[in-house]
């Protein structure tokens, strides 16, 4: 603890003089309007209960804490006796802490605790009577499945911890509580299975979280660059995000670590491998041959979404002899009538696609159908009928768009890399495709912040684990 902090804590120590302590608390919080402090006397000793408006449940406070205290207190009490009653003898809530300084008291009040001060006692007792409004546990909004759990994380950290704990009833499951943010002090929990997770991984993550240089953590994405070591030159991230507690549990069982952040329903998992993006929860519930088929379909979908448009432009513009005759004749007939070159058409339609995707995410639900009409009819059908773009191109872009929705976790990379491939293929044919592919492959293959290469278990090849790429290996680790 550094000297400044010691000095600060020394100045914030609870004196036992009730009025003074309450006044200093108010000054510490800047006279904030949501500070509630109610005072009273019990057995002749003054007391005060301080809470933050909306964070503590007044009903729980009065019924579970104050009423029992009043019932247990005798007609004549001393300060020490009353303090001892509240802090030790009365079993009121399980979540009870004794605080000695106002900073700690303020932190607990912001976490929904009610802090009881006793006149004459150089301390206070905090009771966990959280009553703030929080979202209920609902279905995950971004990761859907058919046969798995329909529960997703919510914004409350403690609820999220309980969702994981409920699924893994083992003492090896550990949660380390950390704080991130110079101003806000957001609660963060580092979860791992003791004995299974690599100690270096856990200590490395802990260090990176503690050293994260942020003011406040409003979304999980804000912590991600720090977990990745601050190196944002990588195209693919070794830290994945999930809304599903069952996915977190599966990854913890593989020896990975998860970071749960208060205020966001997305948990971060590290390290994450490239091929994990092609696995879903339904795979564990399906037959291995079906799982293998679906994983191959997803891999093909990724290829379609990223490389196919660029390859199409390269082949059609530079190497049309690669296509079969009938296909080429159809393409020629279609492209002859359009005003722009194939390269320009592909760029236009890809940008339109991104525009529509962004609009569908941002728009209010009420106008959702309008976007469908605008996108499907106006842009799709009318553009083809008027000859601005050709039908084969629309088919390809439709296929690409559908394929890109198959792997939502790689949506960012899919969107950007698709454009890069289109530009490379249109500018320099297969030569450009090769150059871009080499750069992307080395970029992806060089990731390996946490000791495990991103392209593992395929490169470097681990036979047992490599089978997991295609199907769930029953009864074994990943």
């Amino acid at each position, binding site marked *: 603890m550094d000297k400044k902090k010691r000095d600060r804590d020394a100045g914030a120590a609870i004196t036992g003089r009730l009025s003074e302590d309450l006044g200093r608390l108010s000054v510490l919080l800047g006279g904030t309007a949501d500070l509630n402090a109610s005072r009273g006397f019990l057995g002749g000793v003054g007391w005060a209960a301080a809470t933050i408006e909306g964070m503590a449940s007044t009903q729980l406070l009065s019924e579970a804490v104050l009423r029992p205290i009043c019932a247990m207190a005798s007609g004549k009490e001393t300060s020490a006796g009353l303090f001892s009653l509240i802090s030790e003898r009365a079993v009121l809530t399980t979540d009870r802490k004794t605080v000695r300084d106002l900073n700690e008291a303020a932190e607990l009040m912001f976490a929904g605790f009610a802090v009881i001060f006793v006149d004459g006692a150089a301390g206070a007792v905090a009771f966990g009577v959280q009553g703030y409004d929080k979202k209920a546990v609902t279905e995950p909004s971004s990761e859907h499945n058919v046969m798995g759990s329909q529960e997703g994380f919510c914004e409350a950290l403690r609820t999220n911890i309980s969702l994981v704990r409920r699924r893994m009833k083992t003492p090896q499951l550990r949660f380390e509580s950390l704080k991130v943010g110079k101003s806000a002090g957001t609660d963060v929990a580092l979860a791992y299975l003791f004995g299974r997770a690599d100690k270096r991984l856990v200590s490395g993550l802990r260090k990176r979280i503690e050293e994260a240089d942020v003011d406040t953590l409003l979304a999980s994405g804000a912590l991600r660059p720090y977990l990745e070591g601050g190196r944002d030159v990588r195209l693919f991230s070794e830290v994945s995000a999930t809304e599903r507690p069952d996915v977190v549990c599966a990854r913890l069982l593989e020896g990975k670590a998860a970071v749960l952040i208060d205020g966001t329903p997305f948990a971060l998992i590290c390290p994450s491998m490239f091929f994990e993006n092609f696995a879903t929860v339904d795979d564990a519930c399906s037959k291995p041959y079906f799982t293998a088929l679906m994983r191959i379909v997803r891999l093909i979908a990724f290829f379609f979404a990223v490389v196919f448009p660029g390859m199409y432009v390269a082949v059609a513009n530079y190497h049309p002899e690669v296509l079969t005759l009938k296909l080429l004749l159809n393409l*020629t*007939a*279609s*492209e002859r*009538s359009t005003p722009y070159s194939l390269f320009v058409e592909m760029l236009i339609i890809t940008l339109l696609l991104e525009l529509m995707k962004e609009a569908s995410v941002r728009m209010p639900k009420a106008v959702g159908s309008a976007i469908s009409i605008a996108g499907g009819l106006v842009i799709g059908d009318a553009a083809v009928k008027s000859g601005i773009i050709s039908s084969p191109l629309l088919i390809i872009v439709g296929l690409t768009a559908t394929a890109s929705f198959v792997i939502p976790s790689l949506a960012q990379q899919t969107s950007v890399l698709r454009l890069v491939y289109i530009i490379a293929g249109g*500018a*320099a044919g297969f030569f450009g495709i090769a150059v871009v592919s080499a750069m992307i492959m080395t970029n992806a293959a060089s990731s390996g912040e946490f000791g495990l290469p991103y392209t593992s278990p395929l490169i470097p090849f681990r036979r047992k684990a490599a089978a997991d790429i295609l199907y769930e290996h029953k009864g074994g680790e990943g």
Partner: protein
Amino acid sequence: MSRIWFFLITLTLLFAAFGSRDTIASLDRAMIHAVGIDRENEGYRVTLQVFRPDGTGSETQLDPAKANVYTVDAAAPSVEQAIVLCEDKLGEYVFIGHCQVMLLGEGVSPEEPERLFAYFLRSKESYLGVRLAAAEGKASELLSAELSEGTVAAQNILNVIKRSAENGATVECDLLSAVNCGSCPPILPLLKKTGAPKEEQSSDEKSSGPEKSSVSQLISVEGAVAFPKGKEPFRLGRGECAAISLVKGKAERLMLPAEDGEKPSAVSVEFSSCRTDARESGGVITVSKRLETVIRRDHTVDVLFRGEELEQRCQEELIALISSAERLSREKGCDLFGIGTTVRSRFPEVWRSCGGDTEELLRRCVLSFEAVCRVK
């Protein structure tokens, strides 16, 4: 590593597009389906059959009711110059990547394929497997024939050649084979334009529109033509073509005549294998080829023929065909069966001692053929 590299490379790739001759997109070039080369004075007349995309807007369909090919031709001292003149006439660059067939008119010989096909061998688009064929008369007439309504004409020619070759009626040849023939001369299928009268038109048809031609155009295969180096080309009949195709393993089946008692009939004989054996003794090489064929047992074979007799008859027929081809080969001093390749591979010293002289090679080789036919 700074991200600027990525942008730098992307920009550089864009620049790679400049300075290229083919800045015109390939889809905007004229699609050539077939090429015809005729001799004209001291040069060549090249006829190109071009695909014409029809319709407007992007809802373009290949309209089966309309002809979608047309021809353009030009004459010049060399094939390459003639093609450039054709481009000038078309107003577009040509795309020969999907050229299906190349027809050589009378008087054009693929003896020096590196010279004749220089344009096609040099181009990165052209396919080495493009079929070659010889035209009886002018190649340009064949390419201009309206073979049918709506289908791609060159595709039709290709199908005719393929089916004929599979049935042993002709010998297929592609550009690579022509370039690569070695001692065996290029043997090209011979195509001929024929006409067959159409059925009588109904009175409604007569009165409704303009009068249509009363003859439908057909292309037929009339055996093959061999082009030995330094000699006159000569024709091969169906029988010789069948023998050569079977021995080389290029034909799949052949219809052979067979008598079922009194009336003539025919049976389909399928190619099974052809094993080559070669021995040298005293400077003479004996090349033995054992051709095995199969007759599939079916109702007709069971009812109309007796198994052993049928096999014997078919074997005799096959030997007769092969012997006829061998006689022609020796008469013309031409290695029709590709024996030179076998000798070159197994007896390189003998090959070298012949010095590339085909007649000397044939003199030093004794060919023996055995045909086996089994009903299975």
